[in-house]
């Protein structure tokens, strides 16, 4: 097993997904909002990046818009697109609570996904937009994969710092108050609806950035990359890590991606073994979820960390 490569992949993918998990954590553990359509904001970021940096359509392309902007403009556009999508979906849904909010956001994500598949003028339909621009191709002696891992880790770090700072401030305290008891929070002049909306919107922005990074990493924006499965994975990471502690969330995500990679790192040399492995992988992954959710190892680690600090 090639450990350095494995760690690089875990850092890259784990950090990108970690940003999404952090945003989900902010919405859920602090804002009290269950968002089951988080993948749509991720997809919005990736597609915005793709459309912004893509050259104008030509030849066999079916998409209608390509602005050929530089990568950084695409990156900014991704955050903006996720924000806009959050405004559009948040405006009608945020007055809903709990499960109903969860299911409406899920429905929005499905609508968006179906739209991307069928409206071929946006992103070429099922085949998606490919060969997307990567920031710089020549990093001198540093291999590009390290640059990506570092960029992903940096995005995670910046998101973590920003969210931490926000949550350790009176703003975070007020959020906790709103989540605990909306009526009592309103009785001390906390603008409940406004603050919930703010949390919903600001947490969407890093998800958009993560989407852009993911698009750069895979050089692809394709509907099949952004299915409800991504939402499930991120939620699993969140629950694995324990909902409340912010490091647990990151740990849970990295742990999940690590597991996926370890399972995949095993080389199979015959068709039969690869076939068996494919079904066994599902079974093992499922059993592991069940076991981890029952035993909560990540939760305990982060509790211990907390107790020691």
């Amino acid at each position, binding site marked *: 097993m090639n450990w350095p490569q494995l760690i690089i992949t875990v850092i890259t993918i784990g950090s990108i997904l970690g940003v999404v998990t952090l945003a989900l954590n902010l919405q859920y553990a602090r804002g009290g909002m269950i968002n089951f359509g988080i993948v749509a904001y991720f997809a919005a970021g990736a597609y915005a990046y793709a459309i912004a940096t893509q050259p104008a359509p030509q030849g066999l392309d079916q998409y209608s818009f390509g602005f050929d902007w530089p990568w950084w403009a695409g990156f900014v556009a991704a955050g903006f697109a996720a924000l806009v999508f959050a405004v559009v979906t948040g405006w009608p*849904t945020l007055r809903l609570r709990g499960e*109903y909010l969860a299911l409406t956001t*899920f429905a929005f994500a499905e609508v968006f996904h179906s739209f991307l598949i069928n409206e071929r003028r946006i992103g070429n339909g099922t085949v998606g937009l490919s060969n997307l621009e990567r920031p710089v191709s020549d990093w001198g002696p540093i291999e590009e994969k390290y640059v990506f891992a570092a960029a992903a880790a940096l995005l995670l770090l910046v998101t973590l710092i920003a969210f931490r700072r926000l949550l350790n401030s009176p703003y975070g305290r007020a959020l906790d108050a709103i989540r605990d008891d909306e009526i009592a929070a309103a009785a001390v002049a906390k603008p409940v609806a406004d603050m919930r909306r703010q949390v919903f919107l600001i947490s969407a922005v890093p998800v958009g950035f993560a989407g852009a990074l993911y698009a750069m990493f895979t050089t692809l924006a394709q509907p099949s990359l952004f299915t409800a499965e991504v939402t499930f994975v991120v939620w699993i990471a969140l629950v694995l890590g324990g909902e409340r502690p912010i490091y647990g969330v990151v740990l849970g995500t990295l742990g999940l991606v690590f597991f996926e990679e370890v399972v995949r790192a095993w080389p199979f040399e015959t068709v039969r073994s690869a076939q068996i492995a494919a079904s066994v992988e599902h*079974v093992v992954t*499922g059993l592991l*979820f069940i076991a981890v959710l029952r035993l909560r190892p990540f939760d305990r680690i982060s509790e211990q960390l907390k107790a020691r600090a």
Partner: protein
Amino acid sequence: MLFLQFLVTGIVTGCFLILATIGFSLTRRVEGFLNIAHAELLGVGAFATWWFNASRGWHIIAAAAIAVVITALVGLGIARAIYDPIRVRGPAVLLITSVGVAFVIGGVIDALIGTGIRTLDIGLATSYEPFGIRITNYQLLVVALAALVSVSLALFLNRTRTGLAIRAMAVNPELAASRGIDVRSTSRATWLLSSGLAGLAGVMLAVIATLTTDLPFAQILVILAVAILAGLGSLYTVIASGLIIGVAMDVSVYWIPAGYRPLVAFAVVIIVLLFRPEGLAGTRAA
């Protein structure tokens, strides 16, 4: 006329959705969480039917009956072994666990069945055209089963001791327990019932569709749509929302490309939820 044909097709689709969702909704009401693995239970029912019918050569009715029983027992076993011990951890953990369970069932089915398509050893559907509207015997069977299941479930829940206990559990588990309802046996009845219903939906899936190991889980999105639309309401709202989504999806094909069917299903969900945030059941708390 074409429109009527779409409408009838939509009703059949809706009836299948009712069969597929009714057990899911029951679990959700009584056990309080979304059991994503329900879709894979459809697979257990479907492939059990296929195995007994196509591989062992049993008559379809015998195969279907045993498949329903097997699925009910598998569902109960999973609930006892996996869901019960973590019930106290809340619906989110249960939901994610059920995704894990879905992976396990899916993986096992994959390993046992393999890729490729499977069909039952039954004849081709026979078409009837009353009033110029085409409908097949299998479609009629789906409608009849949906009606039968709905009526008998309604009678069961309203008239029998166990049924009333299930309803009491759904409304208020603590109260139910304090009033002397045997929670454990009621929960067992619920799991047997909801899983058995998944098995029955699986049988119908095997009858009308072409089976692949991916097909059962592909139904989870529509099942969710129907369940969301129904909200936490009674049996009747599940019936209503199954029909609404079925008809909306199929009739939409009259105007917009068929590729948009899932979009239509979820658009209906969004619109209804915006006006009735608690779903069709819609008793809003003050």
